[in-house]
């Protein structure tokens, strides 16, 4: 195919729309941090809400002394393990339930019941069962994300185009071939949707586990700071969490773009 017959427009690395989007995002950042700065320096004592310059200074300091890495790596690692476990178990269990609809219908109310349990109420049990080490935080993150993967796997499998499957069956494709070439690619968007929701939830689970018993992690850092009425420390920990969540979400987006070609 020659270049001139190709009518698809080339995608420039920085299109005007993209530049504008980043400008808008920057604007939101500047305005909100600016408002925080003004309030913290006029009507409210930084004791209550700290202030942007204090938080920035704290983040810089804990970056240099290694505290930030020490705490955030623990939180992220627990969240990632919980995510991976949730993906494997949720996906596997989802496939199983899709294969046996009768089992799925029998379990449906129980799954929904478990799904709506407040995890914070489970936390003491998790500590009892899994200790106050890594495992209890991983399981906490897992308990948040497993249902998302389970439900999206079942729904995604249900939404696969029947005609695509029939077409492959008419050409005598084996069930394994259909699973690999039709069902899995069709489900990828559902799995990525689940992953995008789960990134935030896994971090929440990881931090929640740390709040209840730990000696490390951003959750522990925030808890520890608030115990000493160190508002700046609380805000620094929360800011770090937000940045990590955004970065992890971006990683999922990149992975999605890499694995699923544009439609």
């Amino acid at each position, binding site marked *: *195919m020659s270049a001139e*017959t190709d009518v*698809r427009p080339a995608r420039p690395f920085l299109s005007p729309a993209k530049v504008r989007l980043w400008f808008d995002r920057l604007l939101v950042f500047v305005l909100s941090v600016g408002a925080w700065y003004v309030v913290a320096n006029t009507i409210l004592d930084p004791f209550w809400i700290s202030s942007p310059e204090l938080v920035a200074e704290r983040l810089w300091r804990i970056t240099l002394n290694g505290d930030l890495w020490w705490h955030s790596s623990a939180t992220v690692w627990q969240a990632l393990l919980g995510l991976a476990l949730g993906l494997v178990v949720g996906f596997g269990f989802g496939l199983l339930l899709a294969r046996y609809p009768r089992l799925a219908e029998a379990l449906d109310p129980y799954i929904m019941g478990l799904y709506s349990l407040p995890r914070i109420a489970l936390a003491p049990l998790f500590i009892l069962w899994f200790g106050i080490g890594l495992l209890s935080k991983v399981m906490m993150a897992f308990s948040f994300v497993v249902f998302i993967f389970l439900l999206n796997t079942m729904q995604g499998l249900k939404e696969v*185009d029947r*005609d*695509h499957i*029939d*077409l*492959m*069956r*008419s*050409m*005598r*494709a084996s069930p394994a*071939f259909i699973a690999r*070439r*039709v069902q899995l*690619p*069709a489900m990828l968007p559902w799995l990525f949707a689940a992953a995008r929701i789960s990134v935030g939830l896994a971090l929440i689970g990881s931090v929640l586990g740390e709040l209840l018993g730990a000696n490390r992690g951003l959750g522990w850092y925030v808890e520890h700071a608030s115990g000493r009425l160190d508002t700046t420390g609380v805000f620094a920990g929360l800011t770090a969490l937000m940045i990590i969540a955004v970065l992890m979400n971006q990683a999922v987006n990149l992975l999605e773009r890499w694995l*699923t*070609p*544009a*439609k």
Partner: protein
Amino acid sequence: MERATSAPQTPGESPAACAPPRVKVVGVSKTFPTPDGGVARVIENVDLTLAEGEFLSIVGPSGCGKSTMLRLISGLTPVSEGRIVVAGREVTEPPPGVGFMFQRDTLLPWATVSENISIALELNGTPPAARPARIAELLKLLGLERYADYRPSAISGGMRQRAALGRLLAYGPELYLMDEPFGALDAMTKMILGRELLRIWSQDAKSVVFVTHDIEEAVGLSDRVIVMEGPPGRIKSEYRIDLPRPRDFRAVRLLPEFRDLCERIWGDIGRHSEAE
């Protein structure tokens, strides 16, 4: 053009007229359970035979069971009563050498035109090394060379249906089952694709069962047209189409015999509707 009088079920250089039938449908009925616990009879006691190399169309009002008939022959849906034999083997699952084409293109949306065609080659056991040449050949045959690397969403409905036809041809079936393959296309595209189908078919003379609600399309393409009525789906009447071959899908419509056949078939379906 002069009128051909020879037996129409052996068009082109199709071999022996005494060859066993490609498809034999004997006393087939199909029932489906309805949501309210009852039973819906969709096909009632249908007999039909498709000769080797024959082009058969099934027409009828929507809901008469013609698409179901095609799914039964393809083995995608099991029969409730009776039996279907394709190439000498009773159908219990999709038989080998049968290609299905739907009204919707059913191209995989995440795969390019080439990749979609390639899947059929993979499934019929074409070695990987031989696939690119075969794909290129089919793309050329169907005028799709420019669109090889496009995804279905980036090309028109007509191009998508061409690609679906390419996938069918790539699979290399002996029997084509086509369920209103041009039904969703505009009149002009429909004419062009019908003409290409006829051109391709006249070269390889495979057996075809073509379901459509377009009577002129059916008469223009076929050796024989079956009119179905229903539900429950039954064969109402059958027309032998002795129009000359090779046919020009457009020019053939100017023949008085063509008009006459269409009118008779229309009359058949019309009477059916009045009887309701």
